[in-house]
């Protein structure tokens, strides 16, 4: 059997050799990097053609007609100031309000200028609505967050939706109150046809709601959404304001302008109907699923010690934080939150002819070294002894702001207020990011508008054609 044994030995040797080879192969596959080759992905960068830039101005002060069958109407027409070279103005005449409508300020693509700004001011003195309202004209957007308003007795809040585009928009609203999100019929599927303005009463969705936040989402076309909020205390009108939107919740919000004027007089006058909404307050909402810790820093213009507060926001619950015993003066408010939030600040003023209220929205950051155009509202013939002030706040570091040739030093986290001419165009450039708002005040009148950054530069779109 010697050859059988030999064959057996040969087979064993073969199997051993194969095992060794298999182990070597496995080790090789595991540890030797395989050849690598990858094609270079060629994208084509194309800068889209410049497009027309439009701003939509929401229109005048809204109120109801007198009589048995009251209708929504415009009580006072706005005055508008626009800034920019080669602007074309148009208007939307189809509106839910009588004589209502919106103005569209367009910078055509062939215009020489790159930026534009516009602002509208309205002064009204009717039995139900009085006061000064100023609102910067805004670019239509697909998502708007409006912080302000109330549906308590005597408070009227209108949601103004203007579609200046050529495509119909379908708007879905979300309304939050101090008990959470409001569910009501009619919130979704509001059609805003191209070239029309829809005005929806907030009270149609929720009543007796002291603190409201409205989110506007549009599909199809984009809309310009604002809130008009007016107050009647007892039988006396107590002010009107227009709330302009934030585009998205953010973790840092800056409200550069929060003027407290005649605080004691306001409290005295406003206590007549027992309402507390004349107090200077900040309204906040964390719309996400998580609660947010918010640090509020109130920086006085005078250079005094900043006042820091903290608050915890439950998700989906609107929280109004009043500031009691706040000395008169101009403040800036910074909110730093651990989750994206929206916020707005309310303040009131009182004078010889009555009260006025104003909601100040957070102003977006003006990037460094970018030419910003702003317009100040016309006040002459609107409100007596009116003035306009520019509030600047640099949250991160000191900035030097060039305002029409004169430079202004803005220290880090300090509030700087400059008096500017009303009904004028302002040109700002800063060497560091700043936030800027304007406040307007007159006799028994308070209003504000924001300085908005120019539309983002047209970046190249990277396209991967297949």
């Amino acid at each position, binding site marked *: 059997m010697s050859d059988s044994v030999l064959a057996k030995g040969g087979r064993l040797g*073969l199997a051993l050799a194969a095992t060794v080879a298999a182990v070597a192969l496995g080790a090789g596959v595991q540890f030797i990097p395989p*050849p690598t080759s990858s094609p270079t992905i060629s994208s084509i960068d194309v800068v889209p053609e410049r497009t027309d830039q439009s701003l939509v101005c929401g229109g005048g002060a809204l109120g109801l007609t007198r009589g048995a069958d009251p209708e929504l109407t415009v009580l006072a027409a706005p005055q508008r100031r626009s800034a920019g070279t080669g602007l074309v103005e148009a208007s939307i005449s189809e509106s839910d309000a009588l004589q209502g409508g919106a103005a569209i300020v367009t910078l055509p693509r062939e215009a020489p200028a790159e930026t534009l700004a516009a602002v509208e001011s309205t002064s009204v003195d009717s039995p139900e609505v009085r006061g000064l309202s100023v609102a910067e004209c805004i670019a239509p957007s697909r998502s708007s967050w409006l912080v302000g308003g109330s549906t308590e007795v005597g408070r009227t809040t209108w949601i103004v939706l203007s579609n200046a585009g050529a495509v119909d928009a379908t708007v879905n609203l979300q309304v939050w109150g101090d008990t959470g999100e409001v569910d009501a019929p009619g919130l979704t599927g509001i059609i805003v046809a191209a070239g029309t303005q829809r005005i929806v009463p907030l009270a149609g969705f929720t009543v007796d709601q002291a603190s409201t936040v409205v989110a506007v989402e549009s599909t199809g076309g984009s809309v310009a959404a604002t809130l008009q909020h007016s107050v009647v205390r007892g039988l006396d009108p107590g002010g009107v304001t227009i709330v302009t939107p934030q585009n998205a919740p953010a973790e840092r919000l800056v409200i550069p302008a929060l003027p407290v004027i005649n605080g004691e007089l306001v409290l005295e006058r406003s206590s007549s109907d027992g309402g507390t909404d004349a107090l200077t307050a900040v309204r906040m909402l964390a719309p996400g699923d998580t609660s947010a810790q918010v640090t509020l820093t109130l920086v006085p213009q005078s250079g005094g010690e900043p006042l820091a507060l903290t608050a915890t926001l439950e998700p989906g619950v609107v929280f109004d934080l009043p500031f009691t015993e706040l000395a008169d003066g101009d403040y800036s408010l910074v909110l730093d939150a651990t989750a994206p939030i929206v916020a707005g600040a309310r303040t009131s003023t009182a004078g010889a002819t009555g009260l006025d209220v104003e909601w100040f929205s957070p102003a977006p950051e003006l990037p460094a070294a970018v030419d910003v155009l702003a317009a100040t509202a016309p006040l002459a013939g609107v409100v007596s002894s009116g003035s306009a002030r520019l509030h600047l706040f640099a949250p991160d570091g000191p900035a030097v702001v060039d305002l029409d040739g004169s430079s202004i030093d803005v220290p880090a986290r300090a509030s700087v207020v400059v008096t500017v001419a009303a009904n004028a165009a302002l040109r700002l450039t800063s060497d560091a990011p700043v936030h800027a708002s304007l406040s307007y005040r007159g006799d028994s009148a308070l209003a504000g508008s924001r300085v908005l950054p120019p539309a983002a530069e047209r970046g190249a779109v990277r*396209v*991967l054609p297949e």
Partner: protein
Amino acid sequence: MQPRVTAIVVARRGGDALQATLDALARQTRRPDLLVVVDAASDDAATSQLAAVNPTQFVTAGSSLPFGELVHRGLGALPAIDAPSSPYGGVDEWLWLLRHDTEPDARALEHLLAAVEIAPSVAAAGPKQLDAAQPTVIAEYGETLTRWGAAIAIAERELDQAQHDRTADVLAMGEAGLLVRRAVWNAVEGIDPAMPPVDAALDLCVRIRLAGHRVIGVPAARVFVHEGTAQAARPGASRPLSIRALARQRRTAQLQRRLLYAPAAAVPVHWLSLLPLAVVRSLGHLLRKRPGFVAGELGAAFTVAFSAAAVPAARRRLARGRTMGWSAIDPLRMAPDEVARRRSIARDAELSARDDDRPPRPSFLPGGALVVALATLLGAIMYAPLVGAPALLGGALAPLAPNAAALLSALERSMIASGTAAADPFSFVLAALGALTPWHPSAALVAVWVAALPLAALGGWWAAASLVQRQGPAAAVAALWVLSPSLLVPLAEGRPAAVIAHLALPWLVVAALRAPRSWSATAVAGLLAAVIGACAPSLIPALLIAWVTGMLLRPRAAGRLLTLAVPSLALWVPLIVDQVVRGTPLGLLADPGIAVAPAPSSPTGLLLGWPDLELLLGAVHALLPGLEQADAAAPVPTVALALGALALPVVVLGLAALALPHGRRAVAPLLLAAVGIVTAWAVSSLSVSVAEGAPVRVDVAPALSLAALGLTLAAGVGMQSLGTAGRLSVGGPVRPGAGGRALRVSGAVLTSLAVVASLVVAAPALTAVLRGDAEVRAGEPRTLPAIVAAEALNDPDLGTLVLTPVVLDAGTAVAARIERGAGRTLIEQRTVANTAVLAGDDAEAAQQLAELVANLAAPSGLDVVPLLDELSVSFVLLAPADDDVPRSARDQVVAALDGTTALVPVGDADAGRLWRVSGTESVESETARASTDETTPTTVAGARTVLAVQLGILLLTVLLAVPTSIRSRRRDHVVTDDEPAATFEPGDDDE
């Protein structure tokens, strides 16, 4: 009345046969009166051999002359006949025709003369030709014609048992040892020099018969034939005549006789029918697995069709000698029932010969059948969500083709933006698949998915059955093959090419093992290799290695194995031309079908046989939380080791096979496995195409299929060897002992472990579709929203711009493509287009598209309507983006599209958000219609011809491949323990 015999010996070569012939002549009891020797061998030895017999006449002639002419030369050297040849007086002159290889029996001439003397009507008499090598076998005795004019021997290759000794009157006798009355020879003008040698004597005898004489066979006279008529007719050294050359000669002769014997009026008809008939008969040869006969068939037809004056001359010769009508020979033709009887006998003999030759195979029942049944059940359950679906979507799946007509048209070479694009070989596979359900091509893919498991079981079993003889191992191999991750992962991830490759691989093994012996198997193997190469170009190097190795190991069959590449070449040549001309040969490696990146592979995954470990690891992590790792494709070492341990039994079985008897049978499978794993490793980081901003790596699944096949087959050999261990020892006594039993038990344990472990490991991938965890899903036969599909019914060229936001270099970008009709279909995909990125240059069309997309995806003042019109885009679809794309990026695109006045939002659909280009609701603008030709793939000139050639080659291969012979039911093979390795005989299975 004295007969005078002139023997004529025509010698084409010398040697033993000639010497035997000459010696036999000398030994004749009745010696020929005259001996004429015709020396047609240009060889001194032969000449001296011939001269030594002192012939009456010695004639030297050219070796290339035909037999008839040589006889004529020999006769010419004789003095003229001095007395009239007549049966009633004078000298009776006879010619006795002999060749150098015809050795007459000592009494041959005596018997022949005795036969003709008593029958004056006989003008020719032939002896019984016996095979010189086997003197008891009749080489040939008597020739005749069938009713259709085919020549047929009355007796050929039969054992001589005197069964033909009563046959006397025949139509014709062979030329060897034929005794012909000289006067008649002269009257019919001898042998026709243009007639091929095989039938020269038949023709001569027919003319003798028509001249009113008889031809008889004389069984008592015997001639021992050394070479045979056809071989003896070849000049030079004696080489055996191939069966093909003989068939060609016979066919040539038959066709020539057809033109000769037909009535004059029918000759043109016959002439015209020569070539068509040759083509038809060639197809018949392919069907009967005789591709070697095709050349001869066509050659014969050409030879006869263009033989110029030979036919008219022969017809005149026939007419001059003829005194009787054709009906005179009718009784001598072979009766049709006799022809049929002989054919059936031949077929039976062939079948039984083949049956004996077939290697033993294990019984399919019950083991194989059980595995297939279980796989059917498993497939029906696991892929139940897909049953009845009109199409499959997800992964690289899409509708197969819009309709049956597209199956063919998509195979043509076409024009694309960056040049010409040949159809992918995979498109041919898909076309064949879609043709199974022509009313709804996409349903074929659904069927493949649902039937994948049983098909894999069947394939695995057959592949195993060609290596092992016991049914247990074969069934285990089938089960392992079904549970292979390289099948289950592509099934879950929707990669049809890898699935088809996996299903086809075992059949390639089956066919390739039989290919050296069978034309049918060769054609099948060629087709399967083409299918696998088409599905997985990454396997082509491995297939080439196996092919070349096979040819080196079997040099005798190399010529036949060479033809394996023909179907593949037919499919690949246009694509190779396109890619090479463009300068991107690497693009040939691109996986066919829709370019979708396969899931990332890891080295550990490759070693475990998993193209994508995520499916498995997902289940592991769900069971054992806390083992996750950042890189989802690579397991932590403990998990890797555990999985490796589960895969170990198969490896152990495969390697153990080498140490056991018959271990050599495991060598080739193990090498195959090594080649597979190396291929998988080599291609795992290669990408040659790009989809949606990301490189698309070459799929490793087919290479892992190859590795799994090799390993599984080796394991099968191991199981069999272990299962029979101890019961036999080669060349030694049976040793019943504990050692053998231990081996048998360990074999059974390892086999069960291997199957159970692979079932456990495969479970996550197997159940993925049922759990809804797979990418593959049932869907409608469209990739675009229903509204687009509905409109595409009226306008198949309807364009839809599909935008996909993607992440590119930390920024975002928009991938864009234009789809026509109801969306992308598999069969219309072109790897040439997918690999255009390799060429590097941006085509003009791409720039145009980019400009349109940029101005759509961002707010823009550009009027996009002309661009949309020019590209004839009617819809814009924003496809869902991956999770890593920021939501804002998509929202910006949505806002920009919404803000475009030329677009009307349609809404959200399953395939994404859709906009309609306004103004395209009814009739598209004329300009858009006119410009369609520039953007949609258009056919290139000559594309039809190329396709026709490709399809022709494939059709011929299929004809050769289809089994045409009736297979007898095999008796169940009884397993005997000392089974020798399958023996491979050089003969052909199917001839």
